């Protein structure tokens, strides 16, 4: 930091930053629930999405969902829809002491940043993590233009 500060003040700032970090970590933990995050404004799993030149990738945590309980659709050329359900855990002659895991049907729709080819979409479920790879349509891929010299 370019600015000179009193040692006591920089210590105070550091402590405040640490507090902020701890607090946001706590918040992340609260948000961790599968169907719980109000900020997203939808019911449905939380998503991480990335893109590279050829594709868009999306990932969601869907623990307890079987393969046949999850449906992935591409609507039009740039919408991804994930639908699914998780069956409630029921046990015969059992007392339930704690029930935190959610059991509902869910739908999550996402507008993709680029057009994709609906025929080239792969979805894989592994250890409760769904990973979807959508190949971009050729028009949506960046094209390298050769620069002509003199």
């Amino acid at each position, binding site marked *: 930091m370019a600015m000179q500060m009193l040692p006591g003040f920089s210590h105070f700032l550091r402590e405040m930053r640490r507090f902020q*970090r701890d607090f*946001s*970590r706590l918040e*992340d*933990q609260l*948000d*961790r*629930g*599968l169907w719980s*995050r109000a900020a*997203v404004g*939808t019911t449905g799993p*939380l*998503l*991480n*999405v*990335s*893109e*590279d*030149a050829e*594709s*868009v*990738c*999306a*990932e969601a*945590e*869907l*623990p*307890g*969902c*079987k393969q046949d309980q999850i449906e992935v659709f591409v609507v039009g050329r740039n919408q991804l829809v994930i639908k699914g359900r998780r069956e409630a*855990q029921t*046990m*015969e*002659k*059992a*007392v*339930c*002491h*704690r*029930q*935190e*895991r*959610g059991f509902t049907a869910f739908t*999550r*729709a*996402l*507008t*993709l*940043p680029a057009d994709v080819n609906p025929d080239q979409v792969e979805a894989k*479920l592994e*250890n*409760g*993590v769904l990973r979807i790879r959508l190949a971009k349509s050729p028009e949506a891929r960046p094209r390298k233009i050769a620069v002509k010299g003199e």
Partner: protein
Amino acid sequence: MTEITKTEASPLANAEPTRGTENYFSPLVDVFETEHELIFFADMPGATPDDIQLRYDRGELVLHGKVKPRTLPGQPLLREFEVGDFYRTFAVNEEVDPSQIEAEYKLGVLKVRLPKREEVKPRRIAIKG
């Protein structure tokens, strides 16, 4: 409908890079009890059976799932969740038999069965007529 705006990175994307030893997530858990056992179901997606350490010591059940960092290829556009280890402990009051504890990990869910000791199981007493 979630819209992705390319320029704006969500605040989570700037979260601390450190994880592992100090940054744990608490798995969501259901607990059931039957006459013979206690059953725990914990959502721990992204681990493998080998990554899960389960410990029971004098009434304390420790669930610890190590989750290998995974990254999506390319540039992140939307980050709604973070990946990290799962850790949670439970105090178990029922007298369980530690040698009989069984666990399985399937579809990202850890299921732990803790059978009760014979002597604490309810016993039906026959009533003589």
